[in-house]
């Protein structure tokens, strides 16, 4: 297995959901496969032995189908419940934002608009970058995701977040980074011949580093 770190507050929740489903689904998978191969071995053709005539209507035989069948439904209910909890947390309810950024996809680059020193988007001190996003660790970020041309998809694997950018819409999402360092940003939706080069990096910095980065860049952009 490839190790991929958990870099956001909800990355662990998504991983645990996947693990939980892996256990449930894995049980059914192995149970079915073992049963299947055991039956093939057990009922292999033997000379002079005729197979049994079963219609599948006899109740004592039929319950071998109806019981597992009911159990599948029960498992489904647990999976749906767990999945919706995670979904609501990641996509449906947004915590209060400490900072708001704008992310714009276009063929074939990501542009990031940072709020600057005043922490307000769309003011004169906003910092625009291409291909690199700078954020502060342990802060709630809202992002406004937009596209200039075709459908792109903003994906940060270490955060486990993914959201399509659709032209004509501004889609709001959130994340809160828990690790520092530099990681991949992908475009996960095919967007033309440059789809393979539409990469960017996210720099997650502590408060001091980030403040320094903002200060250094705000000065140069405001006259």
């Amino acid at each position, binding site marked *: 297995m*490839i190790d991929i770190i958990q870099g956001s507050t909800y990355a662990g929740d998504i991983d645990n959901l996947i693990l939980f489903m892996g256990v449930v689904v894995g049980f059914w998978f192995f149970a079915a496969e073992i049963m299947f191969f055991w039956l093939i071995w057990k009922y292999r*053709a033997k000379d002079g032995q005729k197979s049994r005539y079963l219609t599948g209507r006899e109740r004592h035989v039929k319950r071998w*189908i109806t019981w597992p069948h009911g159990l599948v439904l029960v498992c489904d209910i647990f999976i749906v419940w767990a999945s919706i909890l995670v979904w609501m947390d990641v996509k449906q309810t947004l915590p209060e934002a400490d900072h708001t950024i704008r992310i714009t996809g276009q063929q074939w680059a990501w542009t990031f608009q940072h709020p600057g020193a005043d922490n307000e988007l769309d003011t004169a001190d906003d910092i625009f970058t291409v291909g690199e996003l700078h954020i502060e660790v342990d802060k709630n970020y809202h992002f406004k995701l937009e596209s200039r041309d075709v459908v792109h998809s903003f994906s940060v694997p270490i955060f486990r977040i993914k959201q399509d950018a659709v032209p004509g819409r501004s889609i709001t999402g959130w994340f809160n980074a828990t690790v520092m360092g530099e990681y991949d940003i992908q475009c996960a939706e095919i967007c033309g011949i440059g789809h393979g080069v539409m990469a960017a990096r996210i720099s997650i910095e502590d408060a001091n580093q980030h403040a320094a980065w903002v200060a250094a860049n705000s000065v140069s952009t405001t006259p």
Partner: protein
Amino acid sequence: MSDTAVAVQHDERHAHDDHHHGPQGILKYLWSTDHKVIAMQYLFTGMFMAVIGGFMAYVFRMQLAFPGISVPGFGQVSPGEYNALVTNHGTIMIFWVAMPVLIAAFGNYLIPLMIGADDMVFPKINRLSFQIFLLSALILLASLFVQGGGFGGAWTAYPPLSAVGEYNQTELGSSLWLIAVALEFVAFLLGGINFITTLMNARAPGMKAYDIPLVAWMIVIASILFMLSVGPLIAGAVMLLFDQTLGTGFYDPARGGDPILWQHLFWFFGHPEVYVVLLPAIGITIDIIATFSRKKVFGYKMMLYTAVATGVLSFFVWAHHQFVAGIDPRMANVFTVTTLLISVPIAELLFVIIATLYGGSIRLTTPMLWALAFMAEFLLGGVTGIFLGASGADIYFHDTYFVLAHFHYTFFPIAIIGSFAAFTYWFPKMFGKMMDERLGKIHFWGTVIPFNFIFIPLFVLGMGGQHRRIYNYQHFPELASAEMYNLREMATYALLVMLAFQLVFFFNCIKSWMNGKAAGRNPWQSNTLEWTTESPPPHGNWPVDEMPNVYRGPYEYAHPDREEDYWPQNEPS
């Protein structure tokens, strides 16, 4: 009911007398209205397209394992070519391989033979269906060679990328691709109407609804699903074509359109489409398993009703492809529920197949191996789908190789393993010769083992965050590790092995066709009607005075009242 069936057959026989005097010589094969000839046309076209689709997979897998290499037989792969290859690989394998082989070829071949009819009820519509299909295949192939190259916006063709020439840079290729797909739909609508009508009206006297072999039912249910789901997509395709060529703005937000509209129309068709190809494969599997385990199908009606339930549910799950596409997040909860619900009938279908083995007398012939492999492999495809149907987990897995590996674990068993099962099982009927069992088994293991070595590494890569449709991962430091390149190479080597073993199949086909042992009418001692006529069946399927009557269901194996362990449907009791 049976009176009508007789009446229709009677009229049909007159029609046949007429076209006996029709085209002669080579034209007989190009212009025939015989359902068996049309089935062969579909089968061989499908196989030809499978070779092309397989070649494309070879080229892009070579590029992924060894980026920048000059691929033998193709040359260096540019990003544009890479996109066109993956797009057309997907399109071809679904629309020009899975559908023509599983539905059109075996549907055409088997439905009239299995229900004791001398042909389809609309033979000329049937011929037209193939001709349109052939035209669509030619247009698709042509689209790869026009200026700008083939369409490269993925088989899902999301606008605005697919709608605007400036964005996709394959203006002509995109339009031709779209026209080819639309024509293919027309061909299958015509074919589907024929299948449904034939099954309803042309059954042998005495054949009631529950006496129809499951594979015939499954192909007809699939045709109904296709008819009900494809309408919105054809409307969507026309709008997309207008956006491409006339400059309308159905999917352009700047002019009041909406790109997400296409996604809804596409997946409203796209998800039922999975079941359109799955159901025939399940039907083939269950028929073969019943024959070679000498067992009555465990719960015929259960199987039939569950297939219908699956079909109905499949119309309510489409947006699980769009969880992160920008739809209202609350919608995801509804679609998670419906999607997970579909695991219930699918699990039941698989349980029925497993239960049919219970108490059997199982012979592992080549067709039986393929049918069992379908089960064993499809299970993994089925259970991994649950991760993607659950919205919370899909946030991470969406558009990664996990998705790709998942649907190849469904589509490969359906389209390739299912087709080989059917082909090896009915080959004696189609060509009158037995296939070589030893070569058949070599081909079987040489296909199924490498298959797992292709896609298990891709599951692992997907879990590691590898996203799809990237021609070279060098720009993504997290995806450019040596470990990941090793997995990519492993998948590519396994593919090469698998492709090499397909030569065994073609060799076996030719060898068996030339020198195979004569098959006789019923080499597998099966019950269904196609085995009661000569191999291959003559024009009209049975001599006019020997048209079969039906006395019982198709799966009366090992009946306690009978010495022999099978009981053909047409044998008077």
